[in-house]
């Protein structure tokens, strides 16, 4: 499908959203059909688009631009681009999205506001797809904002629950703090590069000339312009992808329905930040080992380690998964910073599949256990929900990096690039520690939920675990989690080459090369070791969650309290940022009352006096003077009109007089 038709992909879900908003709330079944159908259709079109990028051989990038509106001479052009990066993202988002749509059809079968849910969901999908295909930073930013809006709508879907509404608002505000950075960066880029088009026949801002010029320009003490802009954009990406300073909204976002969490925190929204950086990678890489790449790496590694630690202390099923998403995103940032977009994108794709699987699995568990989300009140579901257990286990193993599953390969690629990174070793160390902790908290969760006795009172068998509409997505995601890893192994880096545009060549040698072999050994050691360690700690025989406290809590109570409360970041923010703004507000109000009020009143008084004086002047000078002039004119006119007294002779007199005058004038002229 040519690039001209690319707009159809986001248009279909948008159309579905529009149609669904019009449908009456009773038409639930029809709504689900429309939404899922449009999603699958856009997935088909994405496939077709992916095919066109393949058959064009060498690195293929086609763009389609059109003038959105013309302001005088400057014309704002926007358009879409179809290159391997877009194709990959389109495929992942539309595939995972359609599977999640399918799952939510079953999951929300009894939700009475299903129509609005599906409308918001398709709207979110449309925004996400629009963001992916954008060839213009402005269009991307617009879709970015729409995604933020959709996330607010979806998180706050059960707006009657105050926590959900608060969580939606929090998500919206925090992401928008990030967006401010992104916005300033965009404007700066626009003013400097002159255009926001990525690829515009040589003049685009991601093309060689502009990138080079940005790289060359330096401001405030040697920092390259491109670095500064990309740092600002990074701030936006951190907001959206939930990196350390701006990650607080993500755990609370679990208030929304599980498919929403799955879509937002696995496949789409969080991925947007990484995709943005991947898209703007040429800018980041404008200057050799530019500051922005270093920053990305550091942010990524710190977030990865910190999130993994916090995940250990969580007791809520979905929160653990949320924190794991944050850490995995940290890994993607790390991969991007050290190894370039290909590594990050590979991990993003694999993560999308197994994280979506985990979330949907968690969703079916929650639904089965009567909406119970606390793992301490769950347990022993291995026998009660064998299918879900099996699928959930696959997801957990992929996440933990069990050898030869998709997570293992993508993580190994990241370790490889991190190890190679010459700036500093610490990110590699943090990454390794993170990987270990990931394995530990995932097995902890598995044990809590699926092993031991069944602690849940309201387990209903009635939930048909085998309902086709929920089982099929889970199964599909499971095979995705297993098979996708082989796309980008060291030996046959199909995925990476595809992204770079070269043709992949099978090289077993790389796989068994000294450097990579070591890494493989290291990562298998980490994952299997972590699982064994966790099994050791949490095995049912050793530990009974119903009666005993969490082993970690028992050994390191203070540390565990810090972990459980997410290092009290929320409270800290509330004390500093929230209180600070309130204080600033009150200060401004006082300032306003004491200083500005009088100043304004003073100005008013001043203006009044001036007006009074002008009225006075107007009254006396102008009017009277003007009236006198008018009277004079009127009198003159009256005198003139009197001249026309209707008598013929006076007219002839005037003629005669003028004749005489003319004659005399001629005479005088003649004389001189």
């Amino acid at each position: 499908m040519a690039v001209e038709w690319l707009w159809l992909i986001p248009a279909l879900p948008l159309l579905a959203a529009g149609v669904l908003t019009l449908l009456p709330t009773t038409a639930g079944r029809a709504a689900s059909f429309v939404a899922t159908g449009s999603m699958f259709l856009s997935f088909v079109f994405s496939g077709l688009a992916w095919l066109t990028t393949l058959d064009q051989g060498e690195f293929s990038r086609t763009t389609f631009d059109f003038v959105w509106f013309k302001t005088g001479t400057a014309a704002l052009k926007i358009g879409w681009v179809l290159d391997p990066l877009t194709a990959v993202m389109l495929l992942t988002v539309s595939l995972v999205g359609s599977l999640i749509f399918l799952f939510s059809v079953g999951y929300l079968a009894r939700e009475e506001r299903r129509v609005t849910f599906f409308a918001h969901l398709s709207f979110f999908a449309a925004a996400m797809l629009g963001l992916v295909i954008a060839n213009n930073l402005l269009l991307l930013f617009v879709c970015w904002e729409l995604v933020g809006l959709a996330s607010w709508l979806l998180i706050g879907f059960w707006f009657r629950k105050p926590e959900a509404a608060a969580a939606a608002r929090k998500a919206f505000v925090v992401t928008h703090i990030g967006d401010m950075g992104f916005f300033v960066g965009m404007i700066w880029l626009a003013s400097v590069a002159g255009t926001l088009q990525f690829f515009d026949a040589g003049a685009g801002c991601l093309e060689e000339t502009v990138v080079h010029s940005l790289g060359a320009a330096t401001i405030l003490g040697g920092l390259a312009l491109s670095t500064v802009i990309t740092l600002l954009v990074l701030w936006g990406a951190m907001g959206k992808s939930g990196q350390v300073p701006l990650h607080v909204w993500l755990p609370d976002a679990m208030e929304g329905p599980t498919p929403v969490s799955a879509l937002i925190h696995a496949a789409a929204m969080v991925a947007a930040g990484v995709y943005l950086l991947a898209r703007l990678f040429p800018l980041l890489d404008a200057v050799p080992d530019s500051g922005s790449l270093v920053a990305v790496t550091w942010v990524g590694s710190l977030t990865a380690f910190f999130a993994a630690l916090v995940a250990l202390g969580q007791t809520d099923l979905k929160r653990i998964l949320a924190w794991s998403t944050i850490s995995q995103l940290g890994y993607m940032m790390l991969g991007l910073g050290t190894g370039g977009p290909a590594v990050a994108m590979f991990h993003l794709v694999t993560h999308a599949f197994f994280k979506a699987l985990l979330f949907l699995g968690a969703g079916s568990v929650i639904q089965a256990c009567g909406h119970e989300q606390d793992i301490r009140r769950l347990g022993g579901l291995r026998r009660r929900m064998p299918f879900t257990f099996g699928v959930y286990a696959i997801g957990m193993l992929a996440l933990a990096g069990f050898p030869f599953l998709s997570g293992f390969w993508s993580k190994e690629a990241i370790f490889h690039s991190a190890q190679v990174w010459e700036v500093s070793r610490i990110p590699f160390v943090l990454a390794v520690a993170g990987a270990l902790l990931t394995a530990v908290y995932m097995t902890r969760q598995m044990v809590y939920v699926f092993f031991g006795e069944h602690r849940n009172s309201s387990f209903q068998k009635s939930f048909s675990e085998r309902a086709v509409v929920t089982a099929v997505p889970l199964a599909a995601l499971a095979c995705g989690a297993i098979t996708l890893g082989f796309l980008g192994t060291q030996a046959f880096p199909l995925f990476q080459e595809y992204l770079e545009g070269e043709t992949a060549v099978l090289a077993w040698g790389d796989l068994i090369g000294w450097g990579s072999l070591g890494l493989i050994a290291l990562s298998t050691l980490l994952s299997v070791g972590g699982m064994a360690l966790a099994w050791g700690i949490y095995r049912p025989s050793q530990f009974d969650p119903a009666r005993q406290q969490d082993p970690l809590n028992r050994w390191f109570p203070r540390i565990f309290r810090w972990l459980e409360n997410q290092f009290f970041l929320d409270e800290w923010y509330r004390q500093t940022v929230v209180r600070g703004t309130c204080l600033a507000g009150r200060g401004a109000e006082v300032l306003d009352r004491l200083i500005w009020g009088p100043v304004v009143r003073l100005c008013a008084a001043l203006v009044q006096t001036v007006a009074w004086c002008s009225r006075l002047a107007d009254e006396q000078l102008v009017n009277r003077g003007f009236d006198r002039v008018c009277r004079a004119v009127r009198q003159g006119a009256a005198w003139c009109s009197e001249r026309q007294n209707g008598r013929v002779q006076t007219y002839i007199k005037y003629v005669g007089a003028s004749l005489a005058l003319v004659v005399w004038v001629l005479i005088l002229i003649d004389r001189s």
Partner: protein
Amino acid sequence: MSLTFAIIAAIVLTGAIGLSVLRKTVHCVLSLTIVFFGLAMLYIRLDAPFLGFALVLIYVSAVTILILFTVLLTRNREIETDVSPYSRGSIAGLIVGGSVFAGLIWMIYRAPLSRGITELESPASVKSLGERLMTEYVLPLEVIALLLTAAMIGAVIVAMKDPG
């Protein structure tokens, strides 16, 4: 300034002054005829007899009668003896007339006119006049004919008592 010219000039001027001074309108009109006679004589002295007699034929016999008819037709009810024959602001009129006259006089005496009379072998023979009229001036002739008919019809319509 020969004698005859002086006499004729005197006739003309008496007529003109009579015109402006006499109280009775009909007397003024008659003095107008005197002026015309004087003019006719002048024209004859200037070797244009045809014109002189044409002037008499046109003016004295036709226009003057016309004027007299109009005077009679517009004899307003009350005898106009009491009202002074001069309109208001007549002094200003005189001044204007005088200044125009002064201007013209000045023009005449300063302009280098003193050319003698050029001998004309025969007074403007009517035959040559006829020829020129019919050849060179035929268009003005036609136009004048048209103008006269138009004026005549116009005058009749304007002055006609409406039959209603």
